[in-house]
């Protein structure tokens, strides 16, 4: 295996899985967060119908990420999960509740109120927990001798609360721009109205994290400010896409706000990765320290390379079949 560095290949696969998950589950979690603010029950139906066919496919990436980490980078798995113990529980509980709420809300009328609540709270808690995970990753973990040695709530700091709330805003923005694309009439009007507010909130957190991170983590400071490098292109592009979101909403474009929001997410994510690369368990362990044995990485790679294209094709097909607007009163169940 001299020709390929399996750890790098796996880092790319896992990195791809994570961003796929964030983008795809992001907008449906975002709709859950926006749920209580929707103008009426009719718009809630539209919101739910717009993601109903795809949400569970979106979440499969999370399971694949978890299993893939155990196979390819067990150190990440065995440090992150203990360190984020409580957060992981909250995230899973949130995801389970909203998933079940999704299915039973459509089949229920008497108890619909309760399923609505479960959907909203589940989405909000899951999104917050994921944002806090990002913050905890930037902070780094107390690791000694390849095992986590910190406390139960080390991950919960003012910084991670901010990243948690920030990701909630980010997901809500993905949700509102998705809704612009998928709805019409007064629902779309509402989505147009809230998008700039959410964009402003996301940018505020973006700025705060960018200013705060170098203080939380000196290595990051070193990388970004020691000399001006090509990596500045990532935040620059993220900001450019943010501007594009704003402009396209003003111009009442329907698809562009969502696409531009995806661009914002992708370049922010790439910016985060270059801040840390090749460290995967901050502050000290690189992808090569965290890797499983090469034969294990190779063994798993074969099946993964076979299945991922099939899953991607199926995903693309699903989105294609469900393209177009969701109309008020149009039942999907």
């Amino acid at each position, binding site marked *: 295996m001299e020709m390929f560095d399996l750890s790098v290949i796996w880092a790319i696969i896992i990195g791809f899985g994570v961003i796929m998950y964030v983008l795809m589950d992001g907008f449906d979690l975002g709709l859950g967060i926006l749920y209580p603010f929707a103008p009426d029950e009719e718009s809630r139906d539209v919101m739910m119908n717009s993601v109903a066919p795809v949400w569970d496919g979106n979440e499969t990436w999370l399971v694949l990420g978890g299993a893939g980490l155990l*196979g390819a980078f067990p150190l990440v798995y065995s440090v992150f999960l203990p360190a984020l113990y409580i957060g992981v529980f909250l995230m899973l509980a949130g995801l389970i509740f909203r998933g079940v709420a999704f299915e039973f809300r459509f*089949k229920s009328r008497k108890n619909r109120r309760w399923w609505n609540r479960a959907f909203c709270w589940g989405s909000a808690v899951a999104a917050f927990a994921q944002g806090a995970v990002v913050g905890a990753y930037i902070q780094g973990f107390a690791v000694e001798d390849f095992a986590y040695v910190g406390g139960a709530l080390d991950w919960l700091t003012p910084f991670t609360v901010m990243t948690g709330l920030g990701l909630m805003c980010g997901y809500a923005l993905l949700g509102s721009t998705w809704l612009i694309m998928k709805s019409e009439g007064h629902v779309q009007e509402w989505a147009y109205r809230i998008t700039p507010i959410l964009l402003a909130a996301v940018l505020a957190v973006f700025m705060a994290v960018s200013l705060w991170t170098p203080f939380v983590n000196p290595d990051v400071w070193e990388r970004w400010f020691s000399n001006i490098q090509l990596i500045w292109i990532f935040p620059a592009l993220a900001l450019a896409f943010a501007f594009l979101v704003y402009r396209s909403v003003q111009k009442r474009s329907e698809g562009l706000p969502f696409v531009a929001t995806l661009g914002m997410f992708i370049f922010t994510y790439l910016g985060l990765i270059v801040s840390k690369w090749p460290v995967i368990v901050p502050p000290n362990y690189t992808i090569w320290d965290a890797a499983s044995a090469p034969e294990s990485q190779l063994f798993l790679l074969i099946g993964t390379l076979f299945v991922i294209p099939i899953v991607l094709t*199926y995903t693309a097909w699903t989105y294609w079949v469900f393209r177009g607007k969701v109309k008020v009163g149009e039942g999907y169940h």
Partner: protein
Amino acid sequence: MELDPLLLSRLQFAFVVSFHAIFPVFTIGLASYIALLNGLFYKTENPAWDRLALFWTRVFAVVFGMGVVSGIVMSFQFGTNWSNFSQASANFLGPVLSYEVLTAFFLEAAFLGVLLFGRGKVPQGVHLFAAIMVATGTFISSFWILSANSWMQTPAGTELINGTFMITSWFEAIFNPSFWYRFTHMGMASFLTGGFVVAGVSAWFLLRGRDVEANRKALSMCLWLLLVLAPAQAVVGDFHGLNTLEHQPTKVAAMEGNWETRSHAPLLLFAITDQEAQTNRFEIGIPSLASIILKHSPSGVVPGISEVPRDEQPPVWIVFWAFRVMVALGFLMIGVAIAGAVLRKRGTLYSNPLFLKTLVGMIVTPFVAVLAGWIVTEVGRAPWLVYGMMNQAESVTPSLTGGMALFTLIGYVAVYAVVFWAGIYYLTKVVRNGMLPEGEQEEVTGETERPSRPLSAAHTPFDDADPARS
């Protein structure tokens, strides 16, 4: 009182895995049954097979959905509560468990949608093919999971170097010594589960005179299946036990409640075990029978629990009683299957209310038997996680405190209580709703060519006050 993170983690894992296991155990058997029904319809064109297939596919959809939801938690448990174990065994377990996830994804992406929603939209042969692939896929999934578990019971093909298991042979590790026994035993258990559920539900419908033709067919074929499988499972179980005797003698000793190594060991029917005193305070048994079963001779020497020091012994009473529950239910199943054959010969199979009611009651027995069986094999391995190589105390997450573990244990119990109450409640509604009237097609409301989620394949409303939607 000091909260023990190890004990709480074990309780949590046992709880989560038991809840999860209920669903796949059922879907593995049911998937094959649905494929069979589709095959029969394809061959005979008899609409009764088609209606049965449609009905059970809906049930399958809900149970599959529940299995996926509860399975998500499983894939994180290893890391949150057993991080040392995850780190040590990742070279083997990581790829194997990932392959299970990949199998499930592949299945869902490629065939499940066609099975659930493709009826009438794709050629019948394609639909049948999808049904067969889903059934095959559920077996491949269980193949990986049982390989992982069997490796923990009878590790092979790996070498423990500096606290990490390194692969020396993938083949030996995957097809480790107890794998085929466990896989066969579990596969048959899934078929028995599917068989008893379908038989019980058909009996329930027959008692109410609903869809008599289709339900008679279903009941009849199930009882033929059970008549063969229930006794065969006892034979397979016996072989599995002999394999365990070879590799994990202490577990067998605990199952038998036998403390001292001896010949002419009795088969205990009842015993009050006393781990403190390393003996049974009271016992009723059949002389020499354990020796005969395990060593095929009354003078066969059967190992005792006290062969290993106390801190390497499993909690005997749990293993002992769980084993008896499993075996007793197994014999009950054989008895019911034989009773069915007798009634069939007399021609009163479909009209004997007592037998039909018994079948309804039997629905829960395979689930209880399967859980009891898993308790035997998992608790019987204690205190080892990887048998003879890594114990539970070494495996637990070092940073985990009792408070954290208690918090999530209560949390998971609460979450599952709500979610599974809703799921089981809904499932019973789907079943009670029964089959579509003959000749009537499932309504298709502008959903043509739409792929969808498993649970949405069932159109039954969740609560009653909803006549407009169905």
